[in-house]
């Protein structure tokens, strides 16, 4: 076992990779529920880099920000799933392409 301690750079690179995977998911997938999961993936990547930098810079403010991100993500998921439920109830096979009716 190598006694290498993971530095902040490792955490930031991992967060960057997870964020990019989430971006690819948002661009590729068509199921609105899976789109939401990919957005959660991106939020988690950002949370990870916030916590890594909070530890590195010895500033608890980063962890406070992650707390707020968690709360806002919970509210966002609740509202988004409410919208998705009410859309899918009308047209059960809707994909992301069919949601153009949301505009105006």
């Amino acid at each position, binding site marked *: 076992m190598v006694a290498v301690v*993971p530095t902040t*750079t490792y955490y930031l690179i991992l967060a*960057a*990779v997870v964020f990019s995977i989430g971006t690819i998911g948002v661009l590729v997938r068509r199921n609105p529920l899976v789109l939401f999961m990919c957005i959660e993936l991106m939020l988690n990547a950002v949370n990870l880099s916030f916590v890594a930098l909070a530890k590195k810079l010895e500033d608890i403010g980063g962890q406070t920000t992650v707390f707020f991100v*968690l709360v806002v993500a919970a509210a966002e998921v609740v509202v988004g799933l409410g919208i998705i439920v009410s859309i899918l109830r009308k047209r059960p096979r809707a994909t992301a392409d069919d949601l153009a009716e949301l505009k105006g």
Partner: protein
Amino acid sequence: MFVFIVAALMILAGAVGVVVRSHPVHAALSLVLTLFGVAVLFVAQDAHFLAAVQVIVYAGAIVVLFLFVIMLLGVDRAESLRIDPIKVQRPLAVIVGAGLCGLIVAAVIEGRDTLRARGAGIETATSVDGHDSNIKQLANDLFSNHVFAFEVTSVLLVIAVVGTVLLARRPGKRGAADVADEADVTPAGVS
């Protein structure tokens, strides 16, 4: 380092699973894997309170909400990933994602020396002063510097609950079951 490698493998496997699994339930379970990996890394970085909140709110409430909606709506059939409705969409998406990843990694590596100059970064103030210092520091910061944002957050949660109940209500007759379900699910986000 061992913890980091295992948790990173968990996170990456889960993230890839969310994107490539065609079944929404499998994608949700892969998301749980990722969220647990992130919680492990939070513990490794002395953010104990956030790790607990991550498991409770994300894995406990949000993913359960996802699974609930999947089961409720019956959209749990596999989405066919073979067909590509827009021809160049997938290669373009992969190129955009790889480019984004490359740019962020380049920026991180470029700024590595700046980051290294800012303290040792291993023993921080978040890990000293007893085993519950993290939650004390977090509470101090939250209730002294960000108290207004905290109160606004509670207003946001109330608005989200009321709005979702209104959205999910069937027009005409009162969907009593739906209202009860939403009221059951949302308080978990408050914790």
